[in-house]
């Protein structure tokens, strides 16, 4: 691998890993979601640093250029992370939908109760609070 691309690759991976740690430390990123990024950054760092590792992996996937191996695995990791996020977003959408429906129903019931409470006693025979 040409030394320039190797250095750039190492720097990017080091920056990514360090930045993810910093985001977790500042509580801007939860531990759960940091795992995919740390795994991606560390794997790419190992491939960039170790000539033997990248040679072995390139032979395994049949790549002639080491840089192609880096791009290939970079893309693969990103695809996995995107799929993981799509799954999480689907689950969150479902949760938000359920919450929205329950908020709507609870709000309706709250208003109905408020109407009952505020109704004058001579209209119902008993006071609103007694009805509840």
């Amino acid at each position, binding site marked *: 691998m040409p030394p320039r691309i190797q250095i750039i690759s190492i720097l990017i991976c080091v920056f990514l890993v360090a930045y993810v740690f910093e985001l977790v430390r500042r509580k801007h990123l939860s531990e759960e979601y940091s795992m995919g990024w740390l795994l991606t950054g560390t794997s790419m760092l190992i491939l960039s640093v170790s000539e033997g590792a990248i040679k072995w992996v390139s032979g395994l996937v049949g790549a002639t250029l080491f840089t192609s191996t880096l791009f290939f695995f970079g893309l693969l990791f990103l695809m996995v992370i995107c799929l993981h996020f799509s799954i999480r977003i689907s689950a969150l959408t*479902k949760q938000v*939908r359920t919450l*929205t*429906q*329950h*908020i*709507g*129903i609870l*709000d*309706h019931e709250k208003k109905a109760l408020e109407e009952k409470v505020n109704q004058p006693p001579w209209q119902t025979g008993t006071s609103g609070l007694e009805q509840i």
Partner: protein
Amino acid sequence: MKTLSYQTFKSETHKETAAIQKDDLETFSSQEPLTQPPKTLIIIPAYNEGKNIGAVLEGIQKQSPGIPILVIDDGSSDNTEKIVREHNAKVISLPYNSGYGVALQTGFLYAVKNNFSIVIQMDSDGQHDPANIKDLMEEVQKDNCDVVIGSRFLSKDSYKTSLARHAGMFIFGNIASLFCGQKVTDPTSGFQALKGRAIEFIASDNYPPDYPDADFIILMNRCGFKIKEIPVTMHASPDKESMHHGHKTVYYVFKMFLSIFVTLLRKSPKR
């Protein structure tokens, strides 16, 4: 002497009361038919329908007086909620626009929570004729029916729609007919009557949140619900675009094919 805790006492008393009520009911039902009408609710999802909802509610109140109406205001930015309240109908306001399926399902959740045994669902744009509510109710109360779909294509009146929409209804209607083993002419109809377990089924996780359509009819059929179509009158709503317009048409066609495919692959959920 046997000492009962409050919970045991409560539960045993409840069991006894339930048994007595059951006996009473059986004796009563064997002697004469129940005169008590089934608890019915009309559900109308509405989004920015301030212009039409008033006339729709008046039409229902005139044709089917006494049946409670529940409008689910799907995050409207106009005066839909105010108009519904002025017409003495119940309204559930969702905090933001969540889509037709979510709004409709909210109504079914409310119906389950409040023990309604029959639910009529209809649109808020005046497309559905309130005069047909009676027909849907009569049909759904029969023993061999859980869901009644009001079909515009079984009616003598001709329903005018765009060629693309007509083609879509034809294709998905035929697919639904094929997998249900019965003729389904109008899978997109939102004018339906449901009873009992069918109401609970819609309130469950099985309901598609965006476009409940041919896929859901196939799912209900696979779960053993008896579905029937009856002719209804539908008016075109010229001032409003369909929810399947523009780029949404492409998504709708894709979603429907995918949803039907995975519905057939999945194990049928329990009723």
